[in-house]
């Protein structure tokens, strides 16, 4: 919201206070000043210039060479505007002037071979309007050389203030002035109104009925007759333009002025266009189409609060007037509406229509029901002054249930308890009074505070404490240098994730963070996705059902950048719908925290002393097992292998704890990769961290390192290719003596020389006992026994024999 400081000064005396101080105090009291335009500074170099002579530029049709008198000298200036003529007074920017709309500085220049010593300005270059149709031509009476800050009264300071939604009272100049009055301990001055009314009784000219009293608790009408619809006087236009409003005609400009002065939105109807000279406030009973004064047809839903006349709708209450009753050049008599509408009703209308106006913005935040009369009269007074209107006698004020100020008790002790320091009671009383709140002392700790209706945000004691804190300044609240730390157990629900991250990075994985919002196609890949009702775009219409598609997008993007050897992990939530209809409870969907580990490209890049190696399934499997051993889950999980393809994997394995699957992964199908434009193999494994966390045990126990020597034996068998390593290993473990502790494979070899469909598997066996040294004999016996058993069981042949 733009605020003019000169306008503000009509309501509070700010003499001897610098702009910097005002800006800083506003910001530090919660009215954050986002931008300051100090016109005096902005326009400091611009002066009135006089165009003495003009001649055509010899080398350019559209340029004019002007002789400009700057009060001292005649300067040659090139001008590109077509409306420049000798004899004009213009705004002149001498060399060295910074032009506000472009942040550039005027320099001596040669334009198409002719020297130019300054610039003749258009309105847009001065940020006075968007007009760039020609240079700005000034009144002849101005003296050449005079600064334009003086000539054009461009000596205001315009503040851009961000008003938080709780402060509707500050959405006007009087509102901001009230805070300044409290901040600088000065009086707020609200001008008294003097109305010259005719003998025409308003009740004979118009009538008002409120049918929806809930959504329209108060409606005031004021009638002014015989108005002249003309252009507003300069001061009024200036005032509106300074705060970014475009002047229209005197009546509309006056309603805008009053709105920005006291915060009450007004609407002026052409009284003669109101059927039966009647206003009826009611909600629509069916859907209707209504044309607003911006000439747009709008569909209004059921229960939209409307202003109607005797026959039809004439305005969308609190949002925008209708075309059928708006002020035009021929309007003679007007009805000024000054009403209080229920905030949520206006908000609902504004939201459904997608239409926010200065009026609706204020109504939905909460206007003051009790300023309506002042605003209507202020408006009428100005209409009488500026449109030669005659104010009808009296006012129509339909206000069946008067809204009174709230009364709240405030304890000084509570203020201290919340803020952590004591604000002197006298100071508190002064702050509250300056803010327009009435106070009554109840006892030495308690005040009874009466809160006027312009502060709907102050409802409770805590709200009063905030007012005290902000006006007295947050800087005055002490900053403690010691805190108490309670000794109860601290928990960290992200601790396990941290351990996961450490392990993954140690294994060479890089963490990625993908957007969980993705296309329906990508989300559907791994489950039944949840759709966003109001997505930003089609590529973000669903929530991910796993981390896989996000990872594939990342892999694809990296490959396109030429980065092909990839090892990523991600921890993040995945969402799956488990109901058919609308999501109404937490049991209609699942949200699980997942971990994805994904590899693609080369595991090892060729070096001068190292062979290149592609990532493969065994790398993935090894990484997963190392990963699990680091979180103490290596010996408790059950692996299951699936060599046939499913929806996404060409082959995969799962890891389970008891009956619960913790994760799965393998080689992604080419078909899936193609969808993401990836033409290299990708292996991934996805864990459900929520479950993993629940089975993971944090206690570790110590085992003594082995004190006795191991006896190691190797053997290799030639067997059918179809025989699985794991089956042989399990068989050996089952049949061997308990002294055999470890069986591992150290070579796999396939060759036709071994026979058709045969392969060689070589094992290392480790025998030991924790309590004694073994003898060669007992090992030899078991070893030979195993050879015989394996040979028989698997139709195997011992190699090297």
């Amino acid at each position, binding site marked *: 919201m733009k605020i003019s400081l000169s306008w503000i000064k009509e309501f509070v005396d700010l003499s001897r206070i610098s702009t910097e101080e005002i800006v800083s105090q506003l*910001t*530090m009291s*919660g009215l954050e000043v986002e*931008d300051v335009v100090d016109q005096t500074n902005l326009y400091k170099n611009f002066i009135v210039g006089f165009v003495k002579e003009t001649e055509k530029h010899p080398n350019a049709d559209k340029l004019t060479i002007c002789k400009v008198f700057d009060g001292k000298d005649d300067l040659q200036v090139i001008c590109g505007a077509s409306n420049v003529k000798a004899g004009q007074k213009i705004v002149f920017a001498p060399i060295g002037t910074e032009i506000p709309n472009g942040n550039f500085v005027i320099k001596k220049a040669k334009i198409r071979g002719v020297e130019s010593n300054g610039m003749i300005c258009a309105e847009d270059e001065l940020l006075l309007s968007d007009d760039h149709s020609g240079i700005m031509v000034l009144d002849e009476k101005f003296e050449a050389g005079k600064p334009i800050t003086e000539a054009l009264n461009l000596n205001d300071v315009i503040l851009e203030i961000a008003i938080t*939604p*709780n402060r509707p009272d500050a959405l006007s100049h009087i509102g901001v002035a009230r805070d300044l009055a409290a901040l600088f301990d000065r009086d707020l001055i609200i001008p008294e109104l003097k109305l010259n009314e005719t003998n025409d009784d308003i009740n004979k000219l118009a009538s008002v009925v409120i049918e929806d009293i809930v959504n329209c608790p108060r409606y005031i009408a004021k009638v002014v007759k015989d108005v002249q619809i003309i252009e507003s006087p300069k001061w009024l236009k200036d005032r509106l333009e300074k705060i970014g409003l475009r002047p229209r005609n005197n009546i509309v400009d006056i309603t805008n002025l009053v709105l920005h002065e006291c915060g009450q939105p007004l609407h002026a109807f052409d009284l003669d266009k109101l059927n039966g000279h009647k206003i009826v406030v009611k909600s629509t009973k069916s859907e209707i189409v209504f044309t607003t004064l911006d000439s747009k047809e709008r569909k209004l839903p059921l229960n939209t609060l409307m202003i109607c006349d005797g026959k039809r709708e004439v305005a969308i209450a609190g949002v925008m007037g209708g075309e059928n009753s708006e002020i035009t050049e021929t309007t003679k008599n007007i009805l000024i509406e000054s009403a209080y509408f229920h*905030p*949520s009703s206006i*908000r609902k209308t504004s939201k459904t229509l997608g239409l926010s106006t200065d009026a609706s913005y204020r109504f939905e935040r909460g206007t003051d029901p009790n300023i309506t009369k002042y605003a209507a009269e202020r408006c009428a007074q100005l209409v009488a002054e500026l449109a030669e209107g005659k104010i009808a006698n009296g006012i129509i004020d339909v206000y069946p249930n008067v809204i009174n100020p709230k009364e709240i008790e405030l304890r000084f002790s509570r203020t201290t*308890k*919340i*803020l*952590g320091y004591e604000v002197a009671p006298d100071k508190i009383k002064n702050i509250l009074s300056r803010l327009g709140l009435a106070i009554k002392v109840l006892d030495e700790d308690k005040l009874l505070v009466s809160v006027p209706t312009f502060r709907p945000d102050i409802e409770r004691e*805590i709200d009063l404490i905030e007012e005290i*804190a*902000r006006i007295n300044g*947050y800087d005055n*609240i*002490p*900053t*403690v*240098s*010691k*805190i108490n*730390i*309670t000794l109860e157990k*601290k928990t*960290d629900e*992200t601790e396990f994730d941290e351990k996961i*991250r450490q392990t993954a*990075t*140690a294994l*060479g994985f*890089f*963490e*990625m*963070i993908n957007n*969980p919002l993705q296309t329906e196609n990508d989300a559907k890949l791994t489950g039944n996705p*949840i*759709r*966003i*009702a*109001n*997505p930003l775009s089609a590529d*973000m219409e669903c929530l991910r059902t796993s981390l896989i598609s996000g990872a594939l997008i*990342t892999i694809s*993007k*990296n490959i396109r*950048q030429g*980065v092909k050897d*990839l090892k*990523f992990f991600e921890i993040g*939530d995945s*969402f799956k719908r488990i109901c058919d209809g609308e*999501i*109404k409870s*937490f049991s209609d969907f699942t949200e699980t925290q997942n971990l994805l580990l994904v590899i693609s490209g080369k595991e090892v890049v060729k*070096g*001068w002393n*190292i062979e290149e190696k592609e990532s493969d399934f065994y790398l993935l499997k090894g990484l997963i097992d190392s990963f699990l051993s680091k979180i103490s889950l290596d010996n408790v999980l059950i692996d299951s292998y699936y060599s046939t393809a499913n929806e996404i994997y060409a082959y995969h394995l799962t890891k389970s704890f008891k009956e619960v699957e913790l994760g799965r992964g393998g080689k992604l199908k080419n078909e899936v990769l193609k969808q993401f434009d990836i033409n290299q193999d990708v292996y991934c494994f996805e864990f459900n961290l929520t479950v993993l966390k629940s089975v993971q045990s944090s206690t570790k126990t110590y085992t003594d390192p082995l004190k006795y020597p191991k006896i190691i034996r190797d053997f290799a068998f030639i067997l059918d290719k179809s025989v699985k390593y794991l089956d042989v290993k399990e068989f050996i473990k089952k049949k061997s003596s308990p002294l055999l502790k470890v069986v591992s494979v150290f070579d796999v070899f396939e060759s036709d020389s071994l026979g058709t469909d045969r392969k060689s598997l070589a094992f290392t066996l480790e025998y030991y006992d924790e309590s004694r040294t073994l003898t060669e004999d007992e090992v030899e016996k078991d070893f030979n026994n195993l050879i015989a058993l394996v040979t028989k069981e698997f139709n195997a042949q011992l190699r090297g024999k």
Partner: protein
Amino acid sequence: MLDKNITEIKESFYTDIKSVSSIKDVEELRIKYFSRNGLVSQLFEDLKDVVKEEKPILGKKLNLLRNEVSAYFEEVKERISSSNSNKENEIDLTLPGKNYIVGSKHILTQTLDEIKSIFKGLGFSVANGPELESDYYNFESLNFPADHPARDMQDTFFVSKEFLLRTHTTPVQIRLMEKQAPPVRAIMPGRVYRNEAVSARSYCMFHQVDGIYVDTDVTFAELKGTLVSFAKQFYGSDLKYRFRPSFFPFTEPSAEMDITCYLCHGKGCKICKNSGWLEILGCGMVDPNVFKFVNYDSEKYTGYAFGMGIERIALLKYGITDIRIFFDNDLRFLKQF
């Protein structure tokens, strides 16, 4: 005969040893002359057959020979083995070592880690909550009435009438207070979503850390102290700060904390929009209405809450100009941290 042999073997030894250049040659020479059946040993064998009278002389001669050649042999052997071992150590030390790739945590995770460790040091626990939230937790219980303009402060993605993607991590405060009685002191990091157009400055998804402390006698002064301590640990102890009144439905009084712009040191620049200040977090005293929703007695307990955006902090700290780069997952970017 033997005498002649001694001379011949001596000559042949000196000839042979001239061509010795490797340890292998040395070994061959040793075997030829000094092994059990070597030429020198053979001479001693031959001595047995010599007539008695010549034995002392030839024996002496033989011993002299043996001492001489074996001493010379040892000398050559020593020279060769030492020069050879020098050759074996001669490697090109300048060749690169084996390259090991150590992964890394995302820069946002690292930033969060820093924040977490500071607050853990200040006695805070760390809590989690869901991203797909109900309207009740995200808005209603945080004192955002339905149809209130305060809801416009946070553009929301809805999945249904009642469920939405959380717009802040503040709902975890409610979940935490529902579970336990005061004192509650925890931070709540997590992912949040806003239905805002994607640009260099804003993304539809980002990360926040919320914090809350509720106990008897928690004051605004303590809120200030705690957050100043955090800011000094995170941004540096010479930092200047200010607390400015603001509005959040779930806190009253509410504030925003600014620190001096790290780029211009308070002089005013593009990053701080010429104000010299950078907003780093929002905070305030927990609104009594929030306590009502979790059945805390607001006369007995007071509390403060705060929240900050992690992307914003990381953008400022590392001089990154486009927020989208965090979610591009370009390995060349990720590897830098």
